Structures are given as C-alpha cells and as structure tokens.
C-alpha cells in the first residue's frame, strides 16, 4: 500500500496555507509531519481524510481495497476526541466499533490494550485528558483501518502512555499499516519527515 500526494495546495478562509507539497509513504512507514504552529499540519491531515476540499494537486492511496475510497480506509485521531460525556467508556468505544464497521476487535480487549479496562463502566465525563486520549487510541484498535491519520497523538499522554502508544504503532506498522502523524514531539519510531512551512 502506498500513500502519495502531488502538488497539494491548501487554502483556508481565502488564505493559502501551503502549496506544491509532495509526499509519499508506503506500508510499514511513518510519515511525521512537522512544522511551526499554523503551518498547516492539521490541514494536511484533514485534506488526506477528505474533511477539507483540496484546492490543487492530488492525494492517492494505491493498493488498498478497491471498492473503498481513501477516508473509508483511514482512522482520524484529531484534537477533538469524539467522546460523549453521557456514555460510559465502554459504550463510547462500542458505538464507534459498531458504527465504523469492518474488521473489529472486542472493545473490552482494546480497552485493556490502552490500560483503561478498570474504568470501562465510568461515564466518559469523568475521564482526565490523558484518559480521554487513551480512549480515543482504543478506537484505532477496536476497528482495523490500514491508514492512521494522527494529529498530535501523544498530547496529554504520560511517559508510560507514550511508550505504550509507540508499541501500538509498531504493531500497526508490522501488520502493513501506514501512519501519518502531525507532531512536535519525537514519536519514538524511525520516521520519514515531511516539514511544512518555516525554515525549510
């Protein structure tokens, strides 16, 4: 599987964020998107996820499932964690497992993988920022998608959480997955770097 972008141009609110951006990554690779604040890292992820319309250029995924388009084969982990405070941890995760569909894992098992199994009955409203992030990461495990689009994935995670997440990413890559991560902190994995804006 191979993800590639050619001559991408991004315009937000009438202002050009970046243009002529090229990148590529193949199965088992991490593409780390770096750059100063406001350089368009999140915008690039949202362009790949199909959540922003592309102003120029193209983004292609080769070698995926042919009847599905790119966003349908991707997980998006953004700043906002898509959790409902009124639902319990397990209910939140079970909903996304059922709604997103496809090859899925038992929610309790994915909660255990991120160290949240003790809190599964707790309403999500009572979770700390780090726990919310862990629950969002559990969604990546509960439903299998080959492409992970991660926006500052290690934000709010403590040191054990970060190394746990590095392990989960390694497993994902070993299964032939692909990760695109916008990040300021090092991911703890060998990665191709794509630098947007700033000094480059």
């Amino acid at each position, binding site marked *: 599987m191979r993800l590639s972008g050619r001559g991408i141009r991004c315009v*937000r609110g009438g202002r050009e964020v970046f243009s002529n951006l090229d990148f590529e990554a193949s199965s088992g690779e991490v593409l780390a998107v770096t750059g100063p604040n406001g350089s368009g890292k999140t915008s690039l992820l*949202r362009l790949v*996820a*199909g*959540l*922003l*319309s592309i102003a120029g250029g193209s983004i292609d995924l080769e070698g995926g499932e042919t009847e*599905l388009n790119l*966003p*349908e084969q*991707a997980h*998006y982990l*953004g*700043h*906002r*964690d*898509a*959790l*409902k*405070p*009124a*639902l319990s941890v397990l*209910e939140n995760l*079970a*909903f*996304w497992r*059922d*709604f*997103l*569909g*496809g090859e899925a894992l038992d929610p309790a098992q994915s909660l255990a993988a991120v160290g949240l199994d003790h809190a599964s009955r707790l309403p999500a409203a009572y979770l700390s920022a780090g726990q919310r992030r862990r629950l969002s990461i559990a969604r990546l495990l509960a439903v299998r998608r080959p492409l992970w689009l991660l926006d500052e994935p290690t934000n709010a995670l403590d040191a054990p959480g970060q190394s746990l997440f590095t392990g989960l990413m390694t497993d994902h890559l070993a299964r032939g997955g692909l990760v695109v991560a916008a990040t300021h902190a090092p991911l703890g994995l060998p990665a191709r770097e794509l630098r947007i804006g700033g000094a480059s």
Partner: protein
Amino acid sequence: MTALAAMIRRDIRIALRVGGGALIGVLFFLTVVVLMPFAVGPDLALLTRLGPAILWLGALLASLLTLDRLFMADHEDGSLDLIVMSRTPLELTCAAKALAHWLAAGLPLVIATPVLGLLLNLDATSTSAVALTLLAGTPALTFTGMIGAALAVTLHRGGLLLAVLVLPLSVPVLIFGVAASEAAITGPLSFGAPFSILCALSLISFVIGPFAAAASLRQGLD
C-alpha cells in the same frame, strides 16, 4: 444496518440520560399548554375551539427546542468528522439521527397530548384526533428541521437562526395538522383529506430531509 442501529441506540441513550433533551421538550410542551388557559381566560367553549391549535403550536415549538443540538453536538466534539469519513452513506446516517431524535423528543409529545388535552377541555375523541395528527405530523417537523440543524453547523450559528430557518418550512405541516384535527372535532370537512396531505408531507420530508442535510454538512466541512 448495524451502523445505523448503533447510531439510533446511541442518540436515544444520550437523550434519555442526564443533560439529554428528551424530557425538556415534554416539560416545555406542558408549560406552553398550561399557560394558555391563563392567557385566554376560563372560557371553556373557547378553549375547546382553540385546543387543537394550541396543542399543535406547543408541539411545534417543543420539537424545535432540542433540534439545534442534532448535529451541533457531534460537530463540537469531533464525532461529525468520523461520521463523514465512515463507510455508511451520510444521508442514511442523517436519517437515522433524525429518527432517533423523533423517538426521543417527538414521540413523548404525542404520548403527553391526551393528558394535556384535559387541560384544554377536549373530550376523548378530540384528543385522540389531535394525538393521531401529531403522530403523523411531528416526523415531518423533525425531518425538515434537520435541514436547519445541518445549516446551523455549516454557518456556525445555532439557536435562533434554526428557528428562523425552520419555522417557515413547518407552516404547511401546521396548517394541515390543525385542519385535520379541527375536521375530526367540528367538521364539516372530512378528516381524511387533510390527514392524507399531512402524511404525504411527512413522507416527502423523509426523502428530502436526509439528502438536504447531508449536502449541507458536506458543504460545511472545514
């Protein structure tokens, strides 16, 4: 199918839990109807004559009350991004969300109608006629209101804008809903004609609502 069932289950669950909107709508409906006799005065004949219109207006306003959260809540916490990316067509998801909203917020209004009819001096036949028209008409309010709820997300404005957008669209439903109830109570027109049109309006909104809402949500992505 699993995806849509999951969406309906989740939305109903959230609406019924603390902070959800299901009970607020019924309470608001109750308040509007209870206030009417105080405003109109204790003239029982007048209340009977105005009864169906009051119940319909109350139900219309109550169903609007929680509608602006339909997509806004999902937009704010990022769920909408995942919904748009998912393998389920957005139109079907919109329809499922509207159905869940109706089950949680619209159906309780229909169930409360017989009780509130007593306050307006309506007899059993009249209240059941009004309840029946509400059962046929409130889905149309939800499914057309959904278009406004989606536009509210697109335009980043909630609340009042929704009322301004949605209320004109609900005029036909209100006209035929009240006409059918009046026909059942006082005649001389037959109940069937306005009631059939009311059902037709609901059926049309089932088709147009989800497509318009999905188109609006796709436009509003950013």
